[in-house]
């Protein structure tokens, strides 16, 4: 399997007048070609900012990449000029967002907004673009595509708009699609349809996907591998099957426990006690320390390293370190 995106030691900093905080710290993960890679974690753990940093969409100021590398197909993205970065956005790496209802410009038609991303990156004629728009809308299973191109966003439902967003992101055949909680704002039935659609497109286009979610269920339905985030750290990376059957990190264990059974109707059975510390309350040790049922002395003052313990299975926890 070939590596497509390799993030190494990425730290994103929030600069305020008073202080600087590392919102995410030493992020390490790799996304392979044609792979669906999941990022899962509670609200505020840094999933979105990590994703935005890939295509330099962080709101700077106040957020800055403090250190680390983001390598895409052998190219270092953190050093690109804004012009070079624009060539990648929407073309080689595209992104869809959580709120389809607000993700499109209300004053332009669906067709215009699909065409815009082709106008930026291709030299197709108007006619060719029109055809491609219809063709792509059909690929994302939008009924009456010929009429919908002339509609405005407010005339479509959330599910339809998310399909349009997917169409916009796929129309230039990107290598990587970043989906930031693409189904969180949608009804359960629509959610399932959108996930199916994305699975299908991944196969058809051979696009890699980074699927960001707080829902392990979504991960199990769509992803090959997954990184678990907690408080701005990657705490575990593994194959999806492994994460459910052999989770190592106490936080992952809790997450898995809180999901009753895969694929079927999920019900919250268990929630991890305690709350996530906010970025200004982070200790200097393991970020899960306050809520961990297996905490030890060392955990309080020293961050455990992210290490591979079996092939393809990494974890950041002192439990597995031999020094103990």
């Amino acid at each position: 399997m070939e590596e497509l995106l390799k993030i190494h030691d990425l730290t994103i900093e929030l600069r305020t007048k008073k202080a600087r905080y590392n919102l995410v710290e030493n992020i390490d993960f790799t996304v392979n070609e044609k792979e669906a890679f999941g990022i899962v974690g509670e609200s505020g753990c840094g999933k979105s900012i990590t994703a935005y940093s890939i295509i330099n969409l962080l709101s700077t100021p106040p957020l800055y990449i403090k250190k680390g590398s983001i390598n895409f197909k052998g190219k270092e993205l953190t050093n690109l000029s804004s012009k070079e970065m624009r060539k990648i956005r929407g073309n080689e790496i595209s992104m869809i967002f959580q709120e389809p209802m607000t993700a499109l410009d209300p004053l332009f038609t669906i067709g215009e907004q699909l065409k815009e991303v082709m106008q930026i990156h291709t030299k197709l004629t108007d006619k060719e673009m029109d055809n491609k728009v219809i063709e792509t809308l059909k690929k994302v299973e939008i009924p009456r595509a010929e009429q919908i191109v002339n509609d405005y966003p407010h005339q479509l439902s959330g599910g339809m708009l998310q399909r349009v967003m997917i169409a916009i992101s796929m129309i230039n055949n990107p290598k990587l699609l970043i989906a930031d909680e693409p189904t969180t704002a949608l009804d359960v039935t629509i959610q399932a349809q959108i996930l199916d659609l994305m699975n299908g497109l991944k196969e058809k286009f051979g696009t890699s996907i980074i699927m960001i979610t707080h829902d392990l269920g979504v991960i199990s339905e769509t992803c090959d591998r997954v990184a678990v985030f907690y408080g701005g750290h990657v705490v575990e990376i593994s194959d999806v099957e492994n994460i459910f059957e052999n989770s190592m990190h106490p936080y992952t264990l809790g997450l898995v426990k809180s999901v009753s059974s895969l694929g079927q109707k999920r019900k919250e059975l268990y929630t991890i006690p305690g709350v996530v510390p906010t970025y200004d309350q982070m200790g200097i040790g393991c970020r899960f320390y306050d809520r961990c049922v297996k905490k030890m002395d060392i955990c309080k003052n020293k961050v455990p390293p992210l290490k591979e313990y079996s092939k393809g299975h990494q974890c950041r926890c002192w439990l597995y370190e031999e020094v103990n």
Partner: protein
Amino acid sequence: MRSYITRRLLLFIPVLIGISLAVFLLMHLIPGDAVDSLLGVEATDELREQLTKQFGLDLPWYEQYFNWISGVLKGDFGYSIRTGKAILPEILSRFKVTFELSILSSIISWIIAIPLGILAAVKRNTWADGLARVVALFWVSIPNFALVTLLLLFLSLQFNYYPALQYTAFFDNPVQNLKTLIFPALVLGAIMAGSVMRMTRSSMLEVLRQDFIRTIRAKGAKEKVVIFKHALKNSFSPIITIIGMQIGYLLGGTVITEQIFSLPGLGLFILTGINQRDYPVVQGSILFFALVFVIINLIVDILYACIDPRISYK
């Protein structure tokens, strides 16, 4: 859309009736009457009575109102008590001047304010934004007459400019016409620019915070496209609102500017009418002004619908 416009036009009727009544009653509450101010204190009672009768001022107020308004409906605004001239033609000819001045100064204010507003929004919280905001705040806080006077002083000292003594219509001599109007228009435009700029800035900032801007950036669009094609278009509604209001006020005449630059506009006409207790002039002008104002409001509402597909008038 068409039926919406028809309904809005029908709504004009109660609005104009209300305004005409209010103006009419207000004029009658002002102490002193036209006959006094026309004849002076020396006049004989006979003469006084005769004139009062001639102007219909001896009738009960509602009859006076009815006579006036039924004339207005036939396009007859009556005659000036002072000059005896028909009022409507006078209003219309003065309105031409005021209209031209309003349009010219509005365009000037957009040219100044909109680019500055965009710049301040895009460069928010930098020194450029700070400077633009302070200047705009200062600008909107100075009383207009002070600004006009200062500018005139400046113009006359620096450019040896003085107001033309005679107004020249555009179609008679465009160059002379523009020469007469450009300085008052600059003054008014500069005055209006402050609030237009502030509105542009805050509206742009609001739009730039919205989610869809991120989508456009994620498409790989240039910042130029993000700002001018998408953000600016989405910012227009509040800007149009404030521009509409300003044009509305300008069309009512800008007394001070007209006075200083000796322009025969609507503002001076109304002012003179008030000073001389010339009821028909004041009533007619204000009613006309109200009509212009509601028309501008209608145009603004129609413009909203042209820009924003979410607004549909049925």
